[in-house]
C-alpha cells in the first residue's frame, strides 16, 4: 500500500497533471489500472465547448472585427481633418482627446477568443482525474504545432485536428492536422502554387516548400532519415492547391479549407520512393497515408513520446517496444499510450524530467484547488518560456531538461508571486500532503515546516525538486 501510494503520486506527476485533493488515495490501490481507465472514458480527449467558435467562425469574426476597427480609425482621421479645415487655428484634436471620457479598456476580440480557448484548455486540465489524456493532447498539439501569432485559429485547431484523434490513429491525426486551415496558414501552404498550374502560369507564382519539409522532417519521418530535397520539392507540388477560402469574398465560409485545382501542380509525383498519380487532394492524402505508416515515422514518434514522458535519453528497449507497437497496430495512439504505461521503464522511481512550465503551473493550481485567472496563467506560461500556442519554431517547445532548467529562477519568481497572492490562506503542509504525499522528501517537509511565513512555505512546496520534476 505504501509503495502503491508512492507510485500513485509518481504516476500523477509523470503521466498526469499532478494530484488534486484526494487523488493519490483514490488511485493508490492500482495506479496502473487507474491511468489506463482514463483512456477508456467515453469522450476521452474531447472537451465540451458550446461557446467556442469553430476555426472558420473565429477567423471570419476576427476579419470583420479588424475591418471595422480600421474603418473606425479611418473615419476618425477624416473627421479630425475636416474639423481642422472648418476651424483653422484651433487644435481640436488635442481638446477632443482631453475631453473624451475614459472608457474601460475593452478586450479586443482576437485576445478574447484566445483567452476563451485557453480557459477551456486549462479547465480541461484542472478537472481531469489524472490528466493523462490531456497530457497526450498537449503532446500531440506540440508535435503538430501551429502559432497563434500567425492565425487566430490555434485554439480551435487543437480542438478540431488534435483532440478527436488523440486516442485514434496517427494517420487520421496527420491528415486532420496538415489539412487544417491553421496549419496551411502557419506553414505557408495556403500560398503555395504549382509552377505549372493554371494559377502558377498566369500569376508567375510558385512553390512554397515549408509545409512539405516540416511534415517530412518534424511530423513524420524525422530529420536526416530517408528523404531527399527532391522528395521535399515533389511533396510540396503534391500539396499545392491545399489552401483556404479568402475571407473577404466568402462571408459564410472564408478561412475554411478548399482544394483549389487551379493552383495544383499537374502530373504524377515521386515521394520517398513511390510514385503518386495526380488525383487532386487524393494525391496528398495518399502520400500522407504512406508517410504515417513508414517505419521511420514509427521510430520518430516512439522516440519523441519516450523523450517526453520518460527521459531525455530514453532506454532503447523502450523506444523499440513503442516503435513495434506503432507498426503492429497501424499507428493506434491509444495502443501506444497503453504500451507506454505497461513498460517497466515508466515506473522508475527517479523523477528525471523537469516539468514544462504549463505542466508545473497546472500542477500548482490542482494542488491548491484554485482555478486561477486565465490571463495570469497564460502570462506565467509566457514568462517561463512556453507561451500557449506560440512555439518558437515549427518544431514546437523543447522536451529536453536543458531547455527548461535555466528557467528555474523565473519559476521561483512566479511561485513567490503566486504564494504572496494565495499562500496566506493555505496550509502548505496540507497542500504538500495533497500534491506529493509519500513523494515528499524529509528535507522538503522540513523546509515547509520551518518557513517564516505561509507564503514562503507554499513557495518551497512549489519549488521542491519532487514537485518540479516528474
Amino acid at each position, binding site marked *: 500500500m505504501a509503495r502503491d501510494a508512492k507510485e500513485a503520486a509518481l504516476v500523477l506527476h509523470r503521466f498526469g497533471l499532478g494530484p488534486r485533493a484526494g487523488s493519490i488515495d483514490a488511485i493508490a490501490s492500482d495506479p496502473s489500472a487507474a491511468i489506463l481507465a482514463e483512456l477508456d472514458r467515453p469522450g476521452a480527449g474531447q472537451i465540451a465547448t458550446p461557446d467556442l467558435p469553430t476555426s472558420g467562425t473565429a477567423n471570419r469574426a476576427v476579419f470583420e472585427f479588424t475591418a471595422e476597427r480600421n474603418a473606425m480609425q479611418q473615419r476618425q482621421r477624416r473627421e479630425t481633418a475636416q474639423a481642422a479645415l472648418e476651424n483653422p487655428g484651433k487644435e481640436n484634436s488635442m481638446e477632443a482627446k482631453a475631453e473624451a471620457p475614459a472608457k474601460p479598456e475593452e478586450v479586443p476580440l482576437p485576445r478574447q477568443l484566445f483567452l476563451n480557448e485557453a480557459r477551456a484548455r486549462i479547465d480541461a486540465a484542472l478537472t481531469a482525474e489524472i490528466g493523462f489524456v490531456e497530457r497526450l493532447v498537449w503532446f500531440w498539439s506540440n508535435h503538430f504545432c501551429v502559432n497563434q501569432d500567425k492565425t487566430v485559429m490555434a485554439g480551435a485547431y487543437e480542438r478540431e485536428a488534435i483532440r478527436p484523434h488523440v486516442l485514434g490513429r496517427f494517420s487520421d491525426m496527420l491528415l486532420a492536422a496538415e489539412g487544417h486551415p491553421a496549419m496551411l496558414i502557419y506553414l505557408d501552404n495556403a500560398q503555395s502554387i504549382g509552377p505549372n498550374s493554371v494559377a502558377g502560369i498566369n500569376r508567375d507564382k510558385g512553390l512554397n516548400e515549408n509545409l512539405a519539409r516540416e511534415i517530412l522532417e518534424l511530423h513524420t519521418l524525422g530529420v536526416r532519415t530517408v528523404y531527399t530535397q527532391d522528395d521535399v520539392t515533389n511533396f510540396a507540388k503534391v500539396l499545392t492547391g491545399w489552401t483556404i477560402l479568402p475571407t473577404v469574398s466568402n462571408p459564410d465560409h472564408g478561412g475554411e479549407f478548399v482544394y483549389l485545382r487551379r493552383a495544383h501542380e499537374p502530373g504524377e509525383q515521386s515521394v520517398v520512393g513511390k510514385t503518386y498519380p495526380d488525383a487532386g487532394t487524393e494525391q496528398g492524402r495518399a502520400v500522407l497515408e504512406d508517410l504515417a505508416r513508414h517505419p521511420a515515422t514509427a521510430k520518430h514518434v516512439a522516440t519523441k513520446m519516450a523523450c517526453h514522458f520518460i527521459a531525455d535519453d530514453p532506454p532503447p528497449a523502450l523506444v523499440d517496444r513503442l516503435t513495434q507497437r506503432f507498426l503492429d497496430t497501424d499507428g493506434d495512439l491509444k495502443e501506444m499510450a497503453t504500451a507506454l504505461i505497461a513498460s517497466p521503464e515508466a515506473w522508475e522511481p527517479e523523477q528525471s524530467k523537469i516539468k514544462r512550465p504549463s505542466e508545473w503551473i497546472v500542477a500548482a493550481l490542482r494542488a491548491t484547488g484554485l482555478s486561477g485567472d486565465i490571463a495570469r496563467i497564460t502570462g506565467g506560461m509566457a514568462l517561463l518560456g512556453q507561451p500557449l500556442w506560440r512555439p518558437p519554431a515549427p518544431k514546437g517547445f523543447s522536451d529536453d531538461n536543458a531547455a527548461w532548467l535555466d528557467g528555474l529562477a523565473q519559476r521561483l519568481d512566479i511561485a*513567490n*508571486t503566486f504564494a504572496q497572492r494565495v499562500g496566506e490562506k493555505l496550509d502548505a503542509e496540507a497542500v504538500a500532503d495533497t500534491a506529493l504525499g509519500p513523494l515528499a522528501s524529509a528535507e522538503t517537509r522540513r523546509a515547509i515546516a520551518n518557513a*517564516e511565513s505561509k507564503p514562503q512555505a507554499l513557495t518551497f512546496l512549489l519549488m521542491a525538486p519532487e514537485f518540479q520534476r516528474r
Partner: protein
Amino acid sequence: MPTIFPAPTRRALLVGSGALFAWASVPSTARAEGRDPRFLAIVLRGGLDGLAVVAPVGDPDWAKLRSDKSLTADVATPALPLDGFFALNPAMPNLHRLYQAGQATIVHAVATPYRERSHFDGQDVLESGLPKPGTADTGWLNRALAAVEPGGRVDQRGRQAFAVGPITPLVVRGPAPVLSWVPPRLAPVSDDTTMRLLDLYRHTDPTFARVLEERVGLAAIAKAGGMNSAPGEERPPVQGGGGIAQVRTYFAEAAGAAAKFLAEPEGPRVGALAFDGWDTHVDEGAVKGRLANLLGALDGAIAAIETNMGNAWHETVVVLVTEFGRTARFNGNDGTDHGTATVALLAGGALQGGRVIADWPGLKEADLYEKRDLKPTADLRAVLKGVLRDHLRADERRLEAAVFPDSAAAKPLQGLLA
C-alpha cells in the same frame, strides 16, 4: 495615486483583484478635538532580532554575548547612540533622526503573550490580539475601529481599514470594511527564501542547486571555496539576484503608498502592511549583510511614510511589530534561532518620543528566558492599547473586552502620545 476613494466596498471584491496593504479609514470631518489621527501598523514577519536593531551597548554582558558580530559603539560603523545604554543599528539613520527629534519611541524586551516559537502561531497571536493561537479570523486593528469613541477623534462615517498587498494581513481583517491596494510590483523573492531553497536543493537536487547558485551570483564564491569555508570564516555577503535594491524599492513603494492613502483628507485613517524576511537563522549580518540590508530598507520605508504623509505626519503613529525575538546568542551559523522578547518600534509626529522604554532584564544566562532568549518584561498589548487609547481615542473597556481579550494585566502604557 487616486484622489477620489471608492465608496467602502466589499473586501472580497478588492481582495479578488489582489491586495497587499490593509487600511481602516477613519475619515475626514468633525474630529471633536480638532485632530485627525493616522495609524499604520507594519508587521515584520519572521521574528525580528530586537537585539540587533537596538543593542544594549551599556550592558557589560552584551559584548561577550555575540562577540564581534554584534553592534557596539566603537567599530568601523558604530551603532547610533540613543540614551547612553541603548544604541540603534547604523542601517537606520532616519529612525535615529526621528528619535532625536522626539518622533520615535522604542520599547525593548517586549513580547506578545505567546511563549512558543512557531512563526505561524506567533503571527496569529500578534495579529489577532488574542492570547492564544487558533481560530481567529479577525485582527486587533480592525476590531479596534469598533472601539473608537463616537464623536471622538476618529469619524464614524465611512470607517474602513486599509491594507497593502494581495492578501490582507490578519491584523486588519474583520467586520469593518477593508480597502486593499496592491503595489504594481509584488515583493521580490527574498534572500532568505532563496538561501533556504538553495539549502534544500543542495541536499536533494545538485542540478537545481547549481542553477539557483548562478542566479544568486554565488557560483564564483563557491568555486573560490567560500561555500566550504570553516564556520566563522568571513564570507562575502549574499548579493541576491532579486537584490536588496529591489527589496528597498518594494518596501518604500508599499509603505509610501500606504502613507499617501492615509494622508488623503477623505482617505482611510488606519492601515496595515506586512514585510517578510526577518527569520535570520544563518549569517544574520546585523552590522553588514542581510539584516543590515533589510533594516536599511525598513528605514527607507519609514522615511517614505514621513515624506508622503506631509502635514499629516504630525498626527501619525506608525508601529512596527514582530511575532517574537530571537535567541540572545548566535547559533552555529552566525544566525539566531526563534526566541521571545524583542523590540517594538514606534515612529510618528504624534509621539512623545526620543525615549527607549525598557525594564531591562539583563543578559546573564540566569536573566534570559529559558536561558536562551531575551526575557520579556513588557507586554506588547500594553503598548498597542496605549496607542489605540490615546491616539485614536479607543474606548478602554472595549479595548479590554474585544480588541485584546484577557489582557487586563497589560495596562495601557501611559504617555506615549505628545
